[in-house]
């Protein structure tokens, strides 16, 4: 069963909630990155705090690996049940490294390591995960100095734990070296010393940091998986960066708080998931009517109702697109990778501020929970101008202008008064039932859509310039499709990814006109974006590759499905 890994490898750790799978994920990805490998990690977990079966997949590569793989090269289970749980993804090629005796696992392609006995010798069964981490690191030939220095950072706040954990790593490492020397597993992936300076963040952090680059100074939220990650990140950064973080009593309060914040000069956001957002809809309409900006992050999960709380989906595009009663403009962004999340979350604030509308950042569970190394960011071009105007005595909040945008004043800044009303209103903001004014105001609000459309972000096209087949995707499928496209090695095929889902510039139609066959890829059952493309650009999607079982596409799976579709 000797195996050599040259380009990349996927290592899966599985166990039950509470066994510290998260800890080794954090440890391993950071140490391997310090050592010069590209790393990617994504987790899959159940909606419970203890028990069940959770797993984390770590991919390590010479080139950037940024998507989920359905292939397990090495599996390290910490429970017997978690092997059962993963049986569909374990192949005859998978090598299991496990405490076979203690877990009572019977598997031919296995390396038996008494993780639990070693952990007990160190003092407690809980060290078994760290012993396993040591074994893996030895297989990658990572130097001990690199391991120790990262561990010291991770355990900086709990120095009493460091000695035992280093002992555990060392014990695991010894065994790993034996496995390596026996030739059973040989990892020969090239390292690149530049990678150690890369940053390592997940999707939630990227959205939060991007928002901060857009000037986000306040967040209002009611916890809901998977939207909570952004709230947690902002809370963590709040002290150093002066961010007001308030947990609202419900989502209705959250969005009204955010709109109140913007009205008084703050730059606020809300973060939630589909179910929580459903409660915010009235607020979206309010933002549209009073032309007070708001930024809404929705991390999608499968519905309807409570659905699958910890799984992934792209089912709430329609919800975001059609949310709120009445007709008014909005913008929807959906980052495809971490770099885009940093950028688009910032742009979301700029767009909200400039057009005075609700702006959405649409992500999903898979996106917010995955992380990988990216290059350092450069914000030197970011200007972050606040568009708030100092009011004059005769200030009219809704003065009619050429492009529909009225200068936005805030209370307490200038000599004027700032009057906003959720009823139809006149230029001053006072309630009116004058139907001529109604038409003028409705036209004014909607006219901002023309400008938004004109300035819509360009989609990105990758692959053969001279394509016959065009594969469309949005959001987190970007990196997966990119990898599939590479696997496909098919000429005449390209992919197109939309960082902005709505509105679209009618000019984007040209990308579809060139193609003979158009295929879409979405994590939902009805092809919501495919339908929108028809509506907005009159683009006909010939084949839809859809997935709605709560798990993300893997590159391998997507490659196969594209092959069939072409």
């Amino acid at each position, binding site marked *: 069963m000797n195996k050599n890994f040259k380009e990349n490898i996927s290592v899966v750790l599985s166990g039950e909630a509470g066994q510290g799978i998260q800890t080794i994920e954090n440890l391993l990805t950071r140490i391997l990155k310090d050592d010069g490998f590209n790393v990617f990690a994504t987790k899959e977990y159940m909606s419970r705090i203890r028990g069940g079966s959770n797993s984390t997949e770590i991919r390590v590569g010479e080139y950037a690996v940024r998507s989920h793989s359905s292939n397990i090269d090495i599996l390290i289970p910490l429970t017997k049940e978690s092997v059962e749980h993963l049986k569909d993804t374990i192949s005859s090629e998978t090598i299991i490294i496990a405490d076979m005796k203690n877990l009572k696992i019977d598997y031919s392609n296995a390396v038996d390591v008494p993780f639990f006995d070693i952990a007990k010798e160190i003092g407690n069964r809980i060290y078994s995960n760290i012993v396993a981490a040591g074994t893996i690191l030895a297989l990658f030939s990572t130097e001990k100095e690199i391991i120790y220095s990262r561990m010291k950072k991770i355990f900086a706040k709990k120095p009493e734990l460091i000695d035992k954990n280093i002992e555990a790593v060392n014990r695991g490492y010894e065994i790993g070296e034996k496995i390596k020397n026996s030739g059973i597993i040989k990892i020969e992936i090239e390292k690149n010393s530049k990678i150690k300076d890369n940053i390592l963040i997940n999707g939630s952090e990227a959205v939060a940091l991007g928002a901060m680059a857009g000037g986000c100074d306040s967040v209002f939220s009611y916890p809901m998986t998977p939207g909570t990650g952004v709230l947690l990140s902002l809370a963590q950064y709040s002290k150093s960066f002066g961010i007001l973080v308030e947990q609202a009593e419900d989502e209705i309060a959250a969005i009204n708080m955010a709109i109140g914040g913007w009205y*008084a000069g703050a730059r606020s956001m809300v973060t939630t998931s589909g179910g929580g957002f459903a409660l915010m809809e009235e607020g979206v309409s309010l933002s549209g009517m009073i032309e007070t900006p708001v930024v809404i992050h929705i991390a999608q999960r499968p519905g309807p109702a409570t659905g699958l709380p910890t799984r992934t989906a792209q089912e709430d595009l329609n919800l975001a697109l059609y949310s709120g009663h009445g007709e008014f403009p909005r913008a929807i962004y959906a980052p495809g990778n971490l770099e885009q999340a940093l950028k688009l979350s910032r742009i979301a604030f700029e767009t909200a501020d400039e057009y005075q509308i609700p702006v959405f950042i649409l992500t999903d569970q898979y996106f917010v929970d995955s992380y990988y190394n990216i290059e350092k960011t450069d914000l030197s071009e970011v200007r972050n101008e606040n568009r708030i105007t100092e009011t004059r005595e005769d200030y009219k909040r809704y003065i009619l202008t050429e492009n529909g945008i009225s200068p936005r004043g805030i209370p307490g800044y200038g000599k004027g008064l700032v009057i906003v009303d*959720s009823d139809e209103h006149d230029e001053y903001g006072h309630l009116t039932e004058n139907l001529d004014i109604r038409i003028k105001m409705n036209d004014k609000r909607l006219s901002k859509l023309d400008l938004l459309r004109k300035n819509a972000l360009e989609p990105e096209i990758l692959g053969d310039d001279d394509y016959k087949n065009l594969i469309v995707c949005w959001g987190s499928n970007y990196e997966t499709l990119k990898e599939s496209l590479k696997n496909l090695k098919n000429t005449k095929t390209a992919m197109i990814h939309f960082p902005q889902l709505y509105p679209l510039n009618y000019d984007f139609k040209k990308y579809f006109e060139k193609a003979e066959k158009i295929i879409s890829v979405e994590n939902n059952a009805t092809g919501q974006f495919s339908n929108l493309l028809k509506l907005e650009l009159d683009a006909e999607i010939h084949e839809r590759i859809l997935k709605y079982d709560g798990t993300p596409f893997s590159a391998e799976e997507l490659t196969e499905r594209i092959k069939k579709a072409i």
Partner: protein
Amino acid sequence: MGNRIELFARNDEKEMDIAWCPGCGNFSILNILKAALSEMEEITPENMVLVSGIGQAAKIPHYFRTNTFNGLHGRSLPVAQMIKAVNPELHVISESGEGDMYGEGGNHFIHAIRRNPDITNLVHDNMIYGLTKGQASPTTQKGTVTPVQINGVFLEQFNPIATAITMGATFVARASSGDPAQTKEIIKKAIRHKGYALVDILQPCVTFNKINTYKWFKENSYYLDENYNSENKMKALEIAFNTEKLALGIIYKNEDKKAFHEQLTIYKENKEPLFKRKHNIKELESFINSKI
């Protein structure tokens, strides 16, 4: 003084098309509020915000000259709290009917109190849904027949005073639209209170509430004694639970609690409102790039 009252009057006051019925208690509350504010030199139309929801009472900002946020039905408290939180230099009043505050906005009412934001919560309590033409509100008396509650209301009456005290409110008062002089004084104290202040203002609805009339309110309320100690919580609760005769005045007050914004870390070192702050992009960049 006269000049200051005019400060809060719209300059097109004469042409205003007011949506209230003749004789409505809202007129009196509007005048009382103007009078109260005109006697508070620290407040100007420019440094205050009147936040309201939807209903007849919630239209009050439109007959006023000040910064206004007339938002959604039931949602004025979340908005008002965060206006104050992001700019503590503003004086913030959250004002609506009792259906708006205690019904649609009931959850916000409970939790706003827990935060103790430095805002004033004025509730026009006419014990009926006025704007939607006379359905029962949370404070409608048992037995009241309406076009919806055709057999008479049998739900327990909501007790805003007791609820507010129980949730830890730091200023709880009841007033009457029929007594401008005393109500004005109560409202002034409520506005000057550092923290959340509730004033439940009894108000007749001349069109839809034929039970709780001017006369009824007069006969069924009394003013707390001058020597009443409003800092005794248990005593205050006892008074709050007496719904036979409604107490008027400051029923409970606690001046020792910090206001919401005073506890926020954003104001620990920097007292400036958020909109005046410059974001340090360079610092953020190096922070992001330190996440290695």
